[in-house]
């Protein structure tokens, strides 16, 4: 049996007396595109925070490519091959777009805490950064300070930073939040392109995006996964329909906004 | 007796640190100039006292200092507020310099003869051979009264309720229609008034000179941080702890060399690090609060009873 990219076993998290995650089991094989959906407050972002090491679990086990990651710090988990984006854009606002992406590739190219390499003479970082910037379509804004980008551009940069380090498990937290129709379509295309061959786990509210991208979907309600299945099966699942209360229609993904 | 001295010193520290804690809890501003307002209180009380005597000055000086604080908040701090907490910190940092220099310009570089009034001179009671001065007792009385008054204000009045709400949820309080900026001005002014009150008494108990802010300022910070930023009870605890610790430490003449000597280990000039061994606790006393601060910040940045770690 091949190791799954991400394996969650009975993961629980409580803040004080409030249990947010109440025993989540997930097995995501390598290369799968997996979406996590659910009503607001279900704990989707918390789950991401647990997987990426932002918060410690109360109990349970999370394995990344077979290795236990519980208790590791975010940078340690990142170095093992997992990278995530944030729901609220988290970029280096005083640095240019190019510098943002370059910072994201430095560790993966082995430069660590070097203070003896001249950044501008490091061709490999330049090449990789240019590659990523072109793939997210921000080549023409290379020199602009990230804080001055439009919202959609910042979200694209956010994704760029996430994939730049070459991680093979990518977590995207509501990548299309707050976007118009056309912007969403662009981002979906971007995601499909840059995560080819990688394992993708994303939290999304936009059902169109979910059904268009995902191989499998998990539905998280009140901290528990009530169903994990292919998109069609999820759509037909009565328990899911009840939980979402009309968020899913039989007619097709275009109408499906939660 | 040392214990009582320590407690009275601790209560003075509490008068100072309570204002600091209130201002920090409410506004997130660490007021570097807090000890400067303490100093202004002492000087103003001295000048007023020259005309009308100590006891009227006791009531008037804190009001003057409080007004000064409110003005500073309204015309200075509020402008800086939009640049963030670091800018506010730097503002109060510069303010401390400004106040100290202004005091020098107005009152001079030397200490002013701010004297204990006759009514408070002399011993309150005598225990064995040591006497406890009336002044110290008065200090404790004022501190406790102040503590009680602040508690009353916060817990029992309407404005106190608003302050408590704005303490943790300033935006909600504002959304509910309370004039939060005015409340901020009140709290800042009030905190400074408390510092001024401490100054009125501290000025007579200790020496009134331009460097008095710098000598007590850092200790007040230590108290506020050790007690836990945002907790009045914590500030109270930490004030007493540090007040007692300092008073005892200064009185103790033990040293590591002495202790080793008493168990038969000789430590002489030729022993390496001799200057370390022969240090008496009384000499180490100034360092103790900062040691406590550093240790606390490493292991428990929230402080003893704090609610905010930043």
């Amino acid at each position, binding site marked *: 049996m091949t190791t799954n990219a991400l394996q969650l076993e009975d993961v629980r998290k409580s803040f004080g007396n409030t249990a947010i995650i109440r025993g989540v089991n997930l097995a995501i094989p390598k290369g799968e595109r997996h979406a996590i959906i659910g009503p607001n407050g279900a704990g989707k972002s918390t789950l991401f925070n647990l997987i990426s090491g932002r918060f410690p679990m109360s109990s349970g086990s999370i394995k990344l490519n077979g290795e236990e990651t519980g208790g590791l710090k975010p940078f340690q988990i990142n170095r093992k091959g997992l990278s995530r984006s944030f729901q609220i854009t988290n970029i280096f606002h005083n640095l240019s777009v190019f510098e943002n992406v*370059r910072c994201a590739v430095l560790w*993966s190219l082995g430069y660590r*805490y070097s*203070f003896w390499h001249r950044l501008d003479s490091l061709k490999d970082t330049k090449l990789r950064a240019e590659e990523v910037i072109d793939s997210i379509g921000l080549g023409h804004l290379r020199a602009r300070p990230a804080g001055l980008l439009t919202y959609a551009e910042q979200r694209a940069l956010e994704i760029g930073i996430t994939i730049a380090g070459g991680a093979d498990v990518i977590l995207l937290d509501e990548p299309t939040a707050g976007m118009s129709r056309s912007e969403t379509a662009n981002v979906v295309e971007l995601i499909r392109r840059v995560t080819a061959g990688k394992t993708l786990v994303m939290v999304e509210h936009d059902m169109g995006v979910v059904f268009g991208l995902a191989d499998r979907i998990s539905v998280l309600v009140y901290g528990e996964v009530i169903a994990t299945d292919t998109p069609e099966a999820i759509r037909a699942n009565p328990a899911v329909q009840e939980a979402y209360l009309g968020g899913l229609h039989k007619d097709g993904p275009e109408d499906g906004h939660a | 007796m040392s214990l009582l001295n320590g407690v009275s010193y601790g209560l003075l520290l509490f008068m100072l640190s309570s204002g600091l804690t209130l201002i920090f809890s409410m506004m997130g501003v660490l007021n570097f100039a807090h000890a400067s307002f303490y100093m202004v209180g002492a000087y103003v009380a001295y000048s007023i006292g020259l005309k009308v005597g100590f006891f009227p000055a006791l009531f008037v000086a804190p009001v003057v200092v409080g007004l000064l604080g409110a003005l500073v908040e309204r015309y200075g701090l509020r402008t800086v507020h939009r640049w963030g907490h670091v800018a506010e910190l730097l503002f109060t940092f510069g303010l401390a310099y400004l106040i100290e220099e202004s005091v020098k310009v107005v009152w001079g570089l030397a200490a002013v003869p701010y004297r204990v009034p006759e009514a408070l001179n002399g011993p309150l009671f005598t225990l064995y051979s040591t006497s406890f001065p009336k002044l110290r007792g008065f200090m404790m009385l004022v501190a406790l009264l102040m503590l009680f008054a602040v508690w009353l204000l916060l817990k029992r009045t309407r404005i106190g309720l608003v302050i408590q709400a704005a303490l943790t949820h300033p935006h909600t309080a504002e959304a509910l229609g309370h004039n939060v900026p005015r409340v901020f001005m009140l709290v800042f002014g009030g905190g400074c008034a408390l510092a001024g009150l401490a100054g009125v008494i501290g000025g007579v108990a200790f020496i009134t000179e331009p460097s008095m802010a710098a000598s007590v300022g850092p200790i007040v910070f230590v108290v506020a941080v050790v007690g836990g930023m945002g907790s009045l009870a914590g500030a109270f605890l930490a004030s007493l702890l540090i007040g007692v610790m300092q008073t005892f430490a200064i009185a103790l003449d033990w040293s590591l060399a002495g202790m080793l000597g008493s168990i038969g280990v000789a430590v002489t000039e030729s022993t390496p690090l001799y200057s370390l061994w022969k240090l008496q606790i009384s000499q180490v006393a100034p360092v103790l609060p900062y040691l406590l601060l550093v240790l606390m910040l490493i292991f428990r940045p929230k402080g003893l009873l704090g609610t905010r770690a930043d």
Partner: protein
Amino acid sequence: MAATLRYRPLNLARWVIWGTTALIMAVLPIFFTQGFAITLMSQMGVAIIFTLSYNMLLGQSGMLSFGHAVYSGLGAYFAVHALNMASKGQLWVPVSLLPLVGGLAGAVFGVLFGYVTTKRAGTTFAMITLGIGELVFSCSLMFPDFFGGEGGVTTNRVFGKPFLGVTFGPAVQVYYLIAFWCLVSMALMYAWAHTPLGRMANAVRDNPERAEFVGYDTQKVRWYTLIISAFFAGIAGALGVINFEIVTAENVSAVRSGGVLLAAFIGGVGFFFGPIIGACVFVYFVVALSDHTKAWLLYLGMFFMLMVMFAPGGIASLIMMQVQLVARQRFGRIWRHYLAAGASSLLVLAAVILTVEMTYKVSVDSSGGTLMKLFGVEFDAAAAGPWAVAIGLWIVGGWLFNVTRKRVSQVYGEIQAEFQQGRP
């Protein structure tokens, strides 16, 4: 892959800037020959290194430290002892290499204290640095053997045989030594900002959480940055020893830590050259202004406060704003208003100086009578006349300044609006 020769205009600009700086530093003593001027420039050189090292923490990495003098001061103490040992023949350290001793000492303490302080960030970090600063300062009085007690430790920088005629006795020779180390340090600190560590320090400043999520341990980034910063602070400390031939507890005091913070902030923490400007302004206030008036620290404090309230980006940001206007040919519209506002602010400044100096004379300095001299004009500070003049200046200057300031704001706002709309 064939190597292509690419002409990089940026490289040329870089050499021009650094070359000009070096040239100016080399040539200054020829124009300013008085002993006082030489000492002033030497002190500025040392302050530049110290303030730049501080800005590695504040401006580059977002670390507000209230205890930076610890590193320069301890570096100075180690340097002074090394120098004393060298003149007794116990240790081989030429004066010209003494800064390395200071730098090394600074770096070692950077490792020690840095490990403890960088465990936390933000306000907590600031408080720990304050605590450690006070701790070291208190220790300095407890260990007189090393710290020299109240009188400090003195030394003599002239010993042994002169090297190529250089003894470092005359002040101008010390100046050139300081200028050399200043240039080297500036270049190194500038280069550091363009290394992976330097850039990640920027990233950690902007968004420490994000930095963790691209694989960096933010504590290590801060710690290593602090060690390097402490190294340069130690160099500054050692150069101070060479210049003054004495180290006292004041070198590790909160006053000195506060001073470098003031200097960096006034100059502008957002630009590399900001602290350089700040250091020069600060030294001017402390050394030169203090000869003219006893209230110099008050003026410095007021200046700092005005900066915090109205120009938190410092002098450097003000300069860069004007550079932007010049580059986009808008400066012509606004310089007249600047002039008007500047002239009225001079009136306000006159009012301030008059008031402060007279108050000082009347309340503190009246032992010799109340006659005083200001800008060559003699008058009696206790008379009503000068006070009337002061009040007049306040009213007229204040009103004029208010009017001209509003005009400047208005025109500047119009220009900014044009930029927002994307006009060239």
